């Protein structure tokens, strides 16, 4: 068995770009360098054509029409535009939002900003132990002054996919705008903004084998027509919602990436899910006291999040240095807190520190999966020999009854 190391299993952080996407982008860096708003010459027309085609490609992937796609610099900007744009535009209606506790960091941070600076109130939606939001909870959280419901379609850490259609229906009945950060879901699972009742949807290029620095916001135009206050003023590009000269090569790449996902998703997701299932089964068969975080039945095909009891995440990553992975351990996060997503499932802090996220993708091979299973089992076994907690657990000591003193 030959594999090249390091092995990349951090596709939910970012994906490598598909060579076909690069090929689609290249002409727009050089010969076809025009400004898409230049209406009076062929350079401009060629750029405009590329942008129009990409808008179609992105729209088709999510069941939208091209006019509903606004290009941005990425997922974070799309999220900012959606949430702040609604907050500004619908300020007369109210200052209340409903947000899932497991929504992404950008969503949490934008909402915190509105609470701090603009006097907004937020109702946080809890999730069940699989990480799912209940539509009934959404209904119960709505108020007359609610302007937005935000539920991330698929989670970046645990891969849990939400019942978007049920939540969308509740929002629609109440006449509240339904926003979703779909950066993790788009291109991986079928997305249909009509069937799911979505009004605003953020996506990004670099998680679907496209380039970094480009993303899009879907903005519903009918039933209802959603209006947003622009967050960047300038030349009135993108229907006045997002000024700034478009990143034409990036947009062309995003379009191509979207088209590849649309045409290849059915076969690709089956192949990737089979690799993920093998990874999961291989690890679970060889080690005791491991638990899968999230949902087994409503999960992205390329995600596997496991807690390895009695072993700390950063030390696992150190031992698995030939494999690029992420952990929910505090030592590996910017905030020095263990993963809030895993904590929201009701998983103990200790097991959040002990979690690893494996995310595979288009270029992952069966050989890589087998290699990683072997290295994970070796590393965890070695670290457990070194772990006083594993020793105590094996001696039959109930760790929850020990009086630990925090430091």
């Amino acid at each position, binding site marked *: 068995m030959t594999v090249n190391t390091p092995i990349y299993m951090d596709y939910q952080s970012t994906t490598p770009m598909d060579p076909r996407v690069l090929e689609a982008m290249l002409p727009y860096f050089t010969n076809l360098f025009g400004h898409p708003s230049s209406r009076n010459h062929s350079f401009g027309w060629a750029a405009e054509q590329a942008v129009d085609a990409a808008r179609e490609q992105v729209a088709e992937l999510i069941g939208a029409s091209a006019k509903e796609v606004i290009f941005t610099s990425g997922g974070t900007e799309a999220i900012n535009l959606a949430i702040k744009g609604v907050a500004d535009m619908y300020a007369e209606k109210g200052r209340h939002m409903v947000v899932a506790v497991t929504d992404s960091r950008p969503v949490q941070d934008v909402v915190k900003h509105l609470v701090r600076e603009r006097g907004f109130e937020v109702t946080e939606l809890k999730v069940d132990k699989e990480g799912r939001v209940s539509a009934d909870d959404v209904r119960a959280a709505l108020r007359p002054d609610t302007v937005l419901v935000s539920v991330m379609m698929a989670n970046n850490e645990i891969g849990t996919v939400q019942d978007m259609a049920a939540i969308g229906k509740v929002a629609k009945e109440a006449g509240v705008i339904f926003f979703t950060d779909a950066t993790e879901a788009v291109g991986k699972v079928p997305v249909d903004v009509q069937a799911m009742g979505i009004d605003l949807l953020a996506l990004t290029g670099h998680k679907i084998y496209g380039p970094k620095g480009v993303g899009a916001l879907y903005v519903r135009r009918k039933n209802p027509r959603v209006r947003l206050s622009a967050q960047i003023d300038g030349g009135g590009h993108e229907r006045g919602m997002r000024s700034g000269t478009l990143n034409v090569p990036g947009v062309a790449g995003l379009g191509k990436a979207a088209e590849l996902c649309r045409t290849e998703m059915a076969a690709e997701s089956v192949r990737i899910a089979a690799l993920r299932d093998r990874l999961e089964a291989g690890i679970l068969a060889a080690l005791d006291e491991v638990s899968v975080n999230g949902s087994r039945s409503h999960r992205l095909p390329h995600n596997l999040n496991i807690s390895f009891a009695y072993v700390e995440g950063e030390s696992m990553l150190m031992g698995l240095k030939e494999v690029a992975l992420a952990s929910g351990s505090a030592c590996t996060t910017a905030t020095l807190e263990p993963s809030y997503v895993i904590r929201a499932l009701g998983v103990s802090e200790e097991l959040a520190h002990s979690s690893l996220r494996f995310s595979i993708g288009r270029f992952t091979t069966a050989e890589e999966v087998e290699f990683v299973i072997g290295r994970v089992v070796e590393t965890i076994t070695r670290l457990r020999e070194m772990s006083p907690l594993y*020793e105590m657990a094996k001696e039959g000591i109930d760790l929850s009854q020990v009086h630990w003193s925090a*430091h």
Partner: protein
Amino acid sequence: MAYSDKVLDHYNNPRNMGSFGKEEDGVGTGIVGAPECGDVMKLQVKINDDGIIEDAKFKTFGCGSAIASSSLATEWLKGRTVDQALAIKNTDIVEELNLPPVKIHCSVLAEDAIKAAVNDFLNRSGKPTQAVGDGSAS
């Protein structure tokens, strides 16, 4: 995060990893930290009749720097008297392992573990104990 060569060396080749029986003569055991904080160190010393630490062992749940700090502590403890052991400061560990600021707490934990282990020995042999940090578990 980039680790220093010394941290990597202790992580890859931990010194004195293992356990003594807690009830063995001359053994002192210190367990500090908490699982929910992401690090727990168990440090044990075996002290002979002349009051010299003749052996030391550790087990650690925690990041690479925590493992390295406790591994280094066991190396330093061997051959020391109780008083010399209690003189080891966390800053000595920081310096030796080149720990970055976010990892200083690992060295503090190791210092606490040394004190807890030595005091456990003193307790068990009926001698007066020394002041310990607040990291000890019971």
